[in-house]
């Protein structure tokens, strides 16, 4: 019991620290949100009209109280679950904007994460089982090579070649302008078509970590005494690979998956920006660009809570499943 209480206390402490940093860090940025918004409204102009900046400042109701009062207010609103009005999407609330964009990112991120995890783990297991064979060499070398390429560059290349040169896929966006968002076939097929290139760009890289992690774990395990014992008992190769090797080797990957789930939002920024995908990564990018503190804080908060919760759940599960963890702390 003490173990669980302690884990939970650590969770709360981390959460408080993260929430506080979340308040401080965006405010260390130089610049004025109102001025940035006016700049964005006049993208072709290098000068801003100070009168317009003044009007936008009044519109947003930018705080002129001191930073400690702002911090207290921030904590109060968090407790009440109010995230305020977005600066860059005024007069819409932060919750409204996140509600619009989160599904896109979650669907794209979760599907690619799941496929990447399954494919990567299977490839890694197979490579480890046939270690030092041609399949292993090709997979390991291929994954290492791909891992050295900048993923945003591959994404740009895909966009240029597959969408612009050959016209196989639409150029950016979440769905075509003719489709009416909702549960209709035209929209769903259009959304699927638009998600192919972003998904491929992610999937080219998603399995790499899982492949290498799985292969290396499993190679070690296959050299262990109990695997040799299993061989000596005359168990079938397949049974040894799956039930003695892969089953144990997958555990660190599962721990990694917990963190990856929390990382879905953070990792989506670049890909969504390149493909103009209407998700939360792009929203976060805009929030950063426009100095939209309320939106930035809330998106970061979601990321933080996502990672911390995933971590906490993993900790609890290990506690339940492995008595040694509980006793040793």
């Amino acid at each position, binding site marked *: 019991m003490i173990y669980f209480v302690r884990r939970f206390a650590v969770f709360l402490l981390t959460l408080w620290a993260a929430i506080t940093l979340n308040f401080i860090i965006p405010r260390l*940025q*130089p*610049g*004025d949100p109102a001025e*940035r*918004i006016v700049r964005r409204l006049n993208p*072709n*102009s*290098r*000068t801003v*009209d*100070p*009168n*317009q900046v*003044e*009007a*936008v400042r009044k*519109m947003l109701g930018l705080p002129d109280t001191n930073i400690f009062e702002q911090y207290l207010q921030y904590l109060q609103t968090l407790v009440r679950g109010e995230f305020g009005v977005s600066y*860059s999407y*005024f*007069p*819409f609330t932060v919750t409204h904007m996140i509600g*619009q*964009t989160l*599904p*896109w990112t*979650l*669907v794209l991120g*979760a599907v690619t994460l799941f496929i990447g995890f399954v494919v990567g783990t299977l490839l890694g297991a197979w490579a480890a089982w046939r270690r030092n064979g041609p399949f292993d060499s090709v997979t390991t070398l291929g994954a290492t090579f791909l891992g050295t390429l900048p993923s945003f560059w591959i994404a*740009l290349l895909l*966009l*240029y070649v597959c969408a*612009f040169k050959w016209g196989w896929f639409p*150029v950016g*966006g*979440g769905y075509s*302008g*003719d*489709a009416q*968002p*909702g*549960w209709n076939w035209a*929209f769903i097929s259009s*959304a699927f078509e638009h998600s192919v290139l972003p998904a491929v760009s992610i999937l080219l890289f998603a399995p790499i970590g899982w492949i290498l992690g799985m292969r290396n774990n499993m190679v070690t395990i296959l050299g262990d005494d109990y695997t040799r014992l299993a061989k000596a008992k005359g168990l079938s190769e397949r049974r040894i690979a799956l039930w003695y090797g892969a089953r144990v080797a*997958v*555990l*660190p990957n*599962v721990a990694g998956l*917990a963190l990856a*789930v929390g990382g879905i939002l953070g990792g989506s920024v670049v890909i969504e920006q390149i493909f*103009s995908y209407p998700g939360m990564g*792009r*929203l976060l990018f*805009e929030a950063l660009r426009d100095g939209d503190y309320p939106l930035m804080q809330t998106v970061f908060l979601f990321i933080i809570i996502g990672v911390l919760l*995933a971590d906490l*759940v993993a900790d609890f*599960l*290990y506690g339940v*499943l*492995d008595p040694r963890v509980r006793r040793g702390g």
Partner: protein
Amino acid sequence: MLKSKPMVFLLLLALLAPMPAVASAGSQAPFHAAVAQEGEAPIENLDRGDFGGGSNPQQNFNPFSPTVLSGATTWLFEPLMIINAYSCEVIPWLATEFAWPDPQTLQFTIREGVTWSDGTPFTAEDVVFTHKLGQAFPALDTDQAWDVLTDVVAEGNTVTFTFNTPAGAQFSNLVDNPILPKHIWEAQADPVTFLNEEPVSTGPFLVESFNPQQLVMVRNPDYWQAEKVQVQRLTYTKTEAGGQVAQLALGEGRYDWADQFQPGIEETYVAKDPEHNKYWFPAGGSVSLMMNHSKAPFNDPAFRQGIAYAFDRESMAQRAAFGYTGGSTQAFLTLPNQEIYLDPSIPDQGFLPHDPAKAIEILTAGGYVMDGDSLTKDGEPVNVTFSVPASFNDWVQAAELVREGLGEIGINVEIDSKDPDLVFDERKAGNFDMTFDAPGGGCNLWAGYNYALGGSDAPTPVDTPVDFNYIRFNSPETQALIDQLQGATDIEAQTPIAHQLQQMMMTQVPFIPLWYGPVWFEYRTENAEGWPSAENPYAHPGNPLVIITNLVPPAAA
């Protein structure tokens, strides 16, 4: 070592399970889909790019809102008059005439026979109501007009604005404001957050359909000058304005009308279809060398006059503006189109040559000494830091030429390129040596001077952030001229004051205009002709309402 069961994995998957349904973005109002069935205009459709509202545009037709779908409101709400931003002529629009009975009173005669799209007649009351919104809600007063405005009243079809000071310079701000329907907006408790989802408007187009990826505007058959509008539809597709996707799409000929920066336009755009892909980049504001007058040597007129000859303005225009525009005049005007305001006694229209020898001559006469290769004052070498926003590539390129030019006359320049917000913050606080800015360029000469030098009778102390006259130029005489210019109501009154200000620019050199920033404008002649161009500059690219009433089908041109 961690030890667990595959159950962890399953449970984590379960966490993901309640994935929300696919976004349902914005309710879809029927808009005016049925309006324009019979009698379609000859130009079926023109394709355009971004329509504003950020990457997740929401249904918002409130023209004051920073997330407004500007692609729509441009065509929905019209101003009283349009100032042709190229020739500076005033074009009557929702008002037919204006007069200044005295410099503190401005009167407009409102056009008759205009109706709102719901059939309600447009009246002078709508004009009064729109302008009074800024008084009741300061957040809607985007020009801070109520600093000088005291009242707006309607009488018949006349609207009278009264000011607390001579206010000729307020004209362009006032006529510019989009006029809103009183009968809709007066019912709104908070017009600042009102979304105006089903807009009632006077303009040439109505919203046909909107979703976050596409906005379609359809011709308003009951428009007050409908016979001049030959375009049936305008289709906007969401892209990031000025982003790579927009640049590629322009190259592919997907936009009939665009206003975006395009690198290597001849190769990436014109060459793809030389017959139809055209562009015209008229000169905008002057990118200028701004100096901090709160410190030496920039507070010394001799220094400023001298270095004004150190720059090769044409090379700068070539490198920073790809040669689309040329070097600019020290007289702080956009030439040739604003020539009517230019003092003819200024030699060479104020275009200063690149003449290092002359620069050194002026500097030497001012007490500076060339010591070997470096310029010194009282035995100390002159060193300058040049701050430039790192993301403005053209400015970073030009800063290099500033360094070379000043290097030739013995001034050592260190270029400090950094985050734009840092540059702007330091600029406001007066903690900089030299930087670029692009003041002026518009027809409202006062606004240009006021932004660059306004408040020069009492410059703001260093470390107090300020937007106007952040260079901290100190000249009560100049401020008196700027104030006179603000009061002048017609070109006859404005010109003599403008001439004096130009003389001040030539002798005091408070800042140094270097080259004209181009205004981006690309168009295709496949589906429509009659676009403004260098040969026929009847309107500025920033006057879309004027352009749309001049477009004709290609065959007829």
